[in-house]
């Protein structure tokens, strides 16, 4: 290998872009050629310096809020972007699947018609799983999500930070449950979305009760005159863990 050939390959070697044979070739040349070896050492120390300088710029906290607000606005006027582009096959298939599910689930649980509220909540969760409908305030920061509800509802829903327990906060949105304004707080556990609905509800405290709605689980409890409904397709034991975490927070 000549130095001329080696020149650009020094970079590929530095960037781990060569296969084993290519690396071996250039290493052979570096062992023989002092000029190229010196050049390679200089490149290595340049790389080290750039990394050590840690020159990445981080966006200000306000940017996240601005983009989240922009998305909320877009969501409110979906027809602006309702073009034929949108009606691509995968989108249509997904929409159809949701439609089938939303229609089928109430039919499937007809025999179990005692709990209209629970059914409504599962439906709501399902609708929310469609892209762009999950949250009105998009933030992984509980201190952003919690104040967002202020002035929109007359109670203060708990927005616990459960990141350590692998429930990542995604945001919140407003809902109506049983003709009552409700806060929906959305978490993600791996690939699964967990929606927590909170709404004032008079009555004695009620321990968490788990019910099944066509593959989705609903955990309901009452605590301090607040009703809680956690719904997801995560493992029921995970949903119970989630309920315990919220209750103890």
């Amino acid at each position, binding site marked *: 290998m000549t130095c001329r050939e080696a*020149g*650009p390959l*020094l*970079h*590929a070697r530095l*960037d781990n*872009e060569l296969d084993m044979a290519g690396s071996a070739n250039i290493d052979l040349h570096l062992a023989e050629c002092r000029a190229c070896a010196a050049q390679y050492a*200089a*490149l290595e*120390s*340049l*790389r080290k*310096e*750039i*990394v050590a*300088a*840690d*020159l*990445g*710029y*981080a*966006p*200000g906290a*306000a*940017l*996240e809020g*601005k*983009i989240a607000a*922009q*998305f909320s606005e*877009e969501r409110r006027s979906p027809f602006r*972007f309702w073009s034929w*582009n*949108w009606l*691509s096959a*995968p*989108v249509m298939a*997904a929409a159809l*699947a*949701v439609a*089938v*599910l939303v229609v089928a689930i109430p039919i499937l649980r007809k025999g179990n018609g005692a709990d209209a509220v629970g059914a409504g909540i599962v439906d709501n969760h399902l609708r929310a*799983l*469609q*892209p*762009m*409908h*999950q*949250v009105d305030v*998009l933030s992984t920061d509980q201190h952003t999500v919690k104040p967002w509800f202020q002035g929109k509802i007359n109670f203060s829903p708990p927005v616990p930070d459960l990141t350590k327990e692998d429930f990542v906060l*995604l945001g919140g949105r407003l809902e109506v449950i049983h003709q009552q304004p409700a806060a929906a707080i959305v978490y*993600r556990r791996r*690939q*699964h*979305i967990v929606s927590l609905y909170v709404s004032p509800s008079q009555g004695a405290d009620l321990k968490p009760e788990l019910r099944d709605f066509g593959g989705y689980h609903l955990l309901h409890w009452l605590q301090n005159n607040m009703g809680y409904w956690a719904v*997801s*397709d995560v493992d029921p034991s995970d949903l119970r863990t989630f309920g315990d975490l919220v209750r103890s927070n």
Partner: protein
Amino acid sequence: MDTKVRSFELTMWPHMRAAYNLARWLVRNDQDAEDIVQDSFLKAYKAQESFRGSDSRVWMLSIVRNTALDFLRRHKSRSVVSLEDQVHEPADHTPDPERELLESTRREQVREAISHLEPEFREVIVLREMEGLSYKEIASVLSIPMGTVMSRLSRARSLLLVELGGAKGVSA
């Protein structure tokens, strides 16, 4: 149909920091970089079905890059001015003030050297050294062949070595 249908936001949100970093390095101004990222997220949102099946980070970064280059073309005279009023981040706190001064000076030298590169060289350094993208990923972001990525990196690093005096540090 299950919860695997991940929303656009869930996919794109994690790329905001990388998007901002690239935009910030290209336009060299905080406010303009924010506008470009905001604009890019909106563009991505409107065209979201076109990224299905491809790498969302590469896709987002290529939108940011094109938006930033458009911006630079439109504000050619302004980008020269913004060179002067760059906002410098405060240096990290180190107990030894003398060392801190030396290090922050060197850090600024490295920053300036990269900042003074032409955009086509600056962007490959940012994508490779700060974002850790592979040649293949950089090639996709910039829509250029992988060989060109390598030659641009080679040229960019040679320029930096000259500018920084062989990257020997300030020990002299």
